[in-house]
């Protein structure tokens, strides 16, 4: 085996993937494992999207797509940005990618030279940092503590920006905390960025439609239109329409950036599956009632989970505005010993003992850059959630 490329040795395998695999191994032994580790909606894809996929296959829409996406889907994305975000993007300012992940990968690979810094508010989806590293960049995290609702404070952002800052990542509603930003909060962030014209902004709005209690989503290029010419707005079909397996992400941004990203994607994968593109065009243009109905279902689950977790000794769970995650603090459990005799020194110890003793899979906060926390995905049915939270309560009660 030749030594792997240096760039790859900087990259680690995602902890949520490791937990999911571990949970699957236990399940394969016949154990009833409840997984709260995966960031994937449990709902089916919308029927009109499925129908559009059928039609596309039968009609022979099975040829190489343009590298930046089919015209049909790009027009649907254009309408979506206008309808949901009040953003006007021309067709050459839009591109379609294999999942939202590839939008971010393309942007980093197309723009980051060695040593460029990427500012990432923490806790954060670990892939942001890993992708920045693959591209030779330096991830720099900005702590967003629980006592501020896991939100980015403008003064912290301002202090973190250096002459080497190339990108700032924004992800609200956030994976893993569920925290979202109000318009006023976003305006304060935008005001900082207006002072630093060399900084580019990437906003990952994947959880846009999963937001509760009347909280209103906003995105930075709409809140501060003067930032639009250095903002990449990333979104996709996975979370909103429960279409993870179809692998469709998309983004809007300045033409020069999109062109560079297209060059990058042209070398990595070329175009995206035509069948998936047809399905997502239908999802974006079709009736949106399902999205609202599901958001209401998620809200009920969130309320259930937050309440039950707060009843577990040693856990303190913030109630977030959106996404389908909660990020409970487990500081009260550290230093104790589980019923099975495992010493809990870290959140990794907690997550592993919880999986091995109570068969509930979660992901440790350290995988998202903040300890001692757990990430719990409530994208599973109420019965499972109730059972899982009951097991967590029991696990905590039995700590000594």
């Amino acid at each position, binding site marked *: 085996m030749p030594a792997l490329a240096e760039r790859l040795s900087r990259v680690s395998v995602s902890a949520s993937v490791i937990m999911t695999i571990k949970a699957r191994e236990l399940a394969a032994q016949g154990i009833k494992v409840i997984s709260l580790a995966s960031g994937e909606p449990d709902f089916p894809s919308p029927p009109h999207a499925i129908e559009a996929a059928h039609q596309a296959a039968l009609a022979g829409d*099975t040829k190489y797509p343009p590298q930046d996406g089919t015209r049909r889907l790009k027009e649907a994305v254009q309408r979506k940005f206008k309808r949901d975000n009040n953003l006007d993007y021309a067709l050459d300012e839009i591109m379609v990618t294999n999942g939202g992940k590839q939008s971010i990968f393309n942007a980093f690979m197309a723009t980051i030279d060695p040593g460029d810094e990427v500012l990432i508010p923490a806790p954060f989806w670990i892939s942001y940092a890993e992708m920045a590293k693959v591209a030779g960049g330096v991830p720099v995290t900005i702590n967003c503590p629980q006592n501020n609702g896991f939100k980015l404070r403008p003064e912290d952002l301002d202090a973190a920006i250096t002459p080497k800052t190339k990108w700032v990542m924004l992800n609200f509603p956030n994976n893993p905390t569920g925290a979202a930003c109000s318009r006023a909060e976003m305006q304060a962030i935008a005001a900082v960025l207006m002072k630093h014209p060399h900084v580019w902004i990437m906003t990952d709005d994947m959880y846009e439609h999963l937001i509760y209690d009347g909280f209103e989503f906003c995105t930075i290029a709409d809140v501060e239109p003067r930032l639009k010419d250095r903002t990449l707005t990333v979104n996709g079909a996975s979370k909103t329409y429960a279409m993870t397996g179809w692998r469709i992400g998309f983004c809007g941004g300045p033409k020069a950036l999109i062109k560079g990203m297209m060059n990058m994607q042209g070398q990595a994968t070329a175009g995206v599956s035509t069948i998936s593109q047809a399905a997502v065009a239908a999802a974006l243009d079709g009736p949106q009632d399902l999205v609202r109905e599901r958001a209401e279902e998620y809200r009920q689950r969130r309320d259930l989970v937050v309440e039950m977790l707060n009843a577990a000794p040693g856990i303190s769970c913030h109630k977030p505005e959106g996404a389908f995650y909660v990020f409970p603090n487990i500081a009260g459990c550290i230093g104790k010993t589980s019923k099975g005799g495992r010493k809990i020194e870290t959140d990794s110890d907690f997550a592993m003992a919880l999986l091995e003793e109570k068969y509930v899979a979660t992901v440790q906060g350290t995988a998202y850059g903040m300890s001692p926390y757990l990430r719990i995905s409530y994208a599973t049915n109420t019965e499972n959630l109730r059972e899982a939270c009951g097991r967590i309560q029991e696990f905590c009660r039995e700590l000594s």
Partner: protein
Amino acid sequence: MKLIADRLDRISPSLTIAMTAKARALKAAGKDVIGLSSGEPDFDTPRNVKDAAIAAIERGETKYTDVAGTTELRKAICTKFKRDSGIDYTPEEILVATGGKQVIFDALVATINPGDEAIIPAPCWVSYPDIVALAEGTPVIVQCGQNAGFKMTGEQLEAAITPKTKWLILNNPCNPTGAAYNAAELKALTDVLMRHPHVWIFTDDIYEKLAYDGFKPATVLEVEPRLKDRTVTMNGCSKAYAMTGWRIGFAGAPISLIKAMDKLQSQSTSNTSSVSQAAAVEALTGPQESIEDMRKVYERRRNMVVDMLNAAPGLRCHKPEGAFYVFPDMRGCIGKTTAGGKKIETDEDFTIALLEEAGVATVHGAAFLSPGHFRISYATSDAALSEACTRIQKFCAGMK
């Protein structure tokens, strides 16, 4: 701070895309253009494959899969490698990617450090050197002329290997020449490789099924199984099953390399569309008759195109063993002037004048690192091919 990273400057702009764009513009302006520039089967995806995709959607196979692909598809790929080439791979030695292109990207970006060399026989698909350059490696181009049937000899390979050689990239049958290696020809190369244990081999066998006159293209591990611990055997569904738009490529390789490729892919796109993966299972394991039906048609077209091109003054067209391309030598036209008054100094002048004056879109040889030729794809109807070749004959006959 400039926006675009240095790595993108290392990639040459795609000349194929430039030609396609020009042809599209002429067509849009109402000109009668016959396109012979695209490397895509004109057949539709087989019905059984489409039905399998639809059935998978109905079963709800629309969720994330393992990054490396579903177990079912990886098993089907093992079956395919065993059945077609006698190679034993386990599912852990298989990775599924978004098109063959991503397999190349994953393998090269995961392994190449700055200054590592990759030997590429030319004429070649330009994505190989581009991806090598993107990964900061050095493409080492070995010219294999028409007189050698566009094939590399053992001596040429031996002379090109240095201590810095990391990869040899083979493409059998080849885009753009259609040249293919049988077992005896390949043995000459594998004998050299056995003497240089530091060299890894990437073999792109995507055109495997398209070979004529009873020719059997061989793959490296069929010929020399002892190279298995340093060979990537790449294949896909695009060409054999007319599934370009579905974006399914795959590879068999040693586990350590597959793991590294999996890690990189987990940070760029994750899994390939679950629906496309289900379609690929049916393509690989269902009835295979459609391949032979398509192959026969391609063979008839190849014979017609080669005969007609050799009747054009100034052209000399080698009859290749496979793929759906021919790569005629046009140097007999250099120095002449077209009927439209254009002086032909290069292969690019030739293809542009051919497009503008005769309405036939092809790609010039420099786009495949072999000037003095042009590429014709015969993956289009017999009628269109016959008309296009007649136009080429007239175009050449009209030169002075």
